[in-house]
């Protein structure tokens, strides 16, 4: 009887162990165009994961937005059609609104400060995402958002004279822009090019790399030097899929993804610098922002933010980030 029980236990445990380390296929959606540097890095992550897991974790990448935009990808992940996605802060905020505080205008001012704040906030954000059913395996910084406009913009007053494109479907954001004295025009991003051509809008916010890639800067040849807000991103996997992976290999998978993502950040910064040079060669003017103008921008933002607190931007998270920025500045000063 004992022998029988032992055999049965062995059989069950073997079955269990087989089920536990069964191959996991991860379908990942990405907006990065196929064969772009970002896409290439995702594929390197896929190769590393396959190697590290002894081919039990296989990443299949759907590049170039073929499985939809970020909102579509999140929706498809929720219904199990897709298992993972490489998304920007736009998508991350839709899962966990608290992350939007990280992208509050003029709150974080440079890459070092961003790295410090993100490093401190990661555990909190990761917990929030996990509670919504997602595991983030790598964070990345996508770039800095700037104003691009038809007429030069250095001060808030310069922008107030122009019609500003904003994403449709964000009434709180529109109301905040109006509160700050600007003229927001909510539109679908697909209409941006034609709206710039027709004069329906004169200005928009985006990263230099997007302005160059989509060639929008050809119709708005001024860029304000002011780094309005950082754009973060990450690779997320549904908890259901992540939980199927052998726990012993997970740390190695996260390590590989984080290491390659860090390389991706460096590539993004280099690409952004190159985009700026090329756009300047093709007629882009970068308008400087004086200390007085910076103070004016900060005053304007301070008038708009209260409208967004606890609607779009979580006040508690915002206050934490303000404190972390001050902490970083103090540490830097002490050095």
């Amino acid at each position, binding site marked *: 009887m004992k022998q029988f029980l032992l055999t049965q236990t062995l059989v069950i445990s073997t079955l269990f162990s087989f089920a536990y380390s069964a191959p996991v296929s991860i379908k990942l959606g990405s907006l990065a165009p196929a064969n772009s540097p970002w896409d290439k890095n995702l594929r390197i992550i896929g190769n590393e994961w396959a190697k590290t897991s002894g081919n039990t974790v296989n990443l299949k990448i759907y590049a170039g937005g073929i499985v939809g935009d970020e909102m579509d990808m999140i929706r498809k992940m929720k219904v199990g059609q897709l298992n993972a996605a490489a998304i920007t802060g736009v998508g991350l905020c839709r899962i966990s609104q608290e992350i939007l505080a990280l992208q509050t205008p003029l709150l974080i001012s440079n890459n070092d400060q961003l790295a410090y704040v993100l490093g401190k906030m990661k555990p909190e954000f990761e917990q929030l995402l996990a509670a919504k059913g997602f595991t983030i395996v790598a964070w990345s910084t996508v770039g800095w958002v700037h104003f691009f406009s038809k007429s030069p913009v250095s001060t808030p007053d310069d922008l107030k004279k122009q019609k500003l494109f904003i994403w449709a479907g964000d009434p709180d954001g529109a109301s905040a822009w109006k509160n700050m004295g600007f003229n927001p025009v909510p539109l679908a991003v697909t209409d941006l090019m034609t709206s710039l051509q027709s004069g329906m809008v004169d200005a928009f916010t985006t990263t230099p790399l997007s302005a160059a890639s989509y060639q929008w800067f050809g119709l708005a040849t001024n860029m304000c030097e002011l780094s309005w807000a950082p754009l973060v991103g990450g690779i997320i996997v549904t908890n259901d899929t992540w939980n199927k992976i052998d726990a012993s290999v997970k740390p190695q998978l996260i390590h590989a993804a984080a290491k390659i993502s860090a390389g991706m950040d460096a590539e993004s910064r280099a690409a952004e610098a190159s985009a700026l040079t090329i756009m300047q*060669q093709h007629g882009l003017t970068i308008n400087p922002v004086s200390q007085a103008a910076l103070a004016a921008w900060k005053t304007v933002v301070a008038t708009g933010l209260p409208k967004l607190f606890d609607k779009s931007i979580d006040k508690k998270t915002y206050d934490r980030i303000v404190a972390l920025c001050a902490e970083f500045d103090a540490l830097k000063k002490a050095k």
Partner: protein
Amino acid sequence: MNTFKLKKNTSLRIFVGIALISVVGSQFQCVKKIAIKAVSKALSGESGTVFSGDNDPELVGDALPFAIKTYESLLAQNPKDTKLLLATGKALCTYGYLFVQIPADRLPDEQLDLKTSQRLRAKRLYMRSRDYLISALESRHKGIKKSLLQGTAEAALSECTLKDTSILYWSGMAWMAAVSIDKFDLSLALTTPTAVACISKSMALCDSFSNGSAHDFFISYYGSLPASMGGSIQKAEAHFEKSLQYAHGMRVAPYIALATSVCVKAQDQQRFTTLLESALALNPDTYIQYRLSNITGQEQARWLLAHTSDYFLDTKDILAQ
């Protein structure tokens, strides 16, 4: 039979030409020039089915590098020969696409480094092709090369006539192939409007050129481009209709162009399959002038059908997991 005769005649003329070049010494420059012109004429003439009518892509892939180097040797002696410039540009673009880019694109992710280096090689071939082709335009319209490279093509292109259709089409195709294989070469990406203007002009001069081939480009162009950059499914569909109308069932390219752009973007797997099956239904031996492109197009269609899951999320698979 006719193809064989053409091949035989062309080969004979090339052989005689090369023999002439080797026989004449440097003292006989005049004879040499005549010989070079004879060979150039033989190679670049409209006996075009030598390559395009072949039924063996591998043989063509092996032969094209030699042909390209022969053309380039002749161009070194006769750099303004419009027909030879066109033939060289076409050969480079064709070789780059069929025998460098497509095999690279089919490599698995495990061979990422090789894939990247081969795609960069294809880009260099496209750029070399484009340069020969815009030199061909320059040989017919002085100053056009500078205008095209400076992005002020509109006035320059207005001088082009029906005779320029083929050069314009191939210039734009080689240029756009280079742009699309490396979308993050921003300097090159910013020249997209000029490349597209060349293809548009060729279409304006002769809408039915090469049985609607220019329309195939616009199927992919409007079908793949994001709407924020001017992409339009409606425009892609309209070009598909035009292309089919001019193709008279002779070419598989329009089906593949629509399947890989509009259908993938719309995640319409059923239509993707139907279009690729339509491409496979064509008998490539029926239309000799398109035999090579139809055979390679059908190879591509078969590969795409075998790799459908790379382009579409298969819901059934997921539910079964």
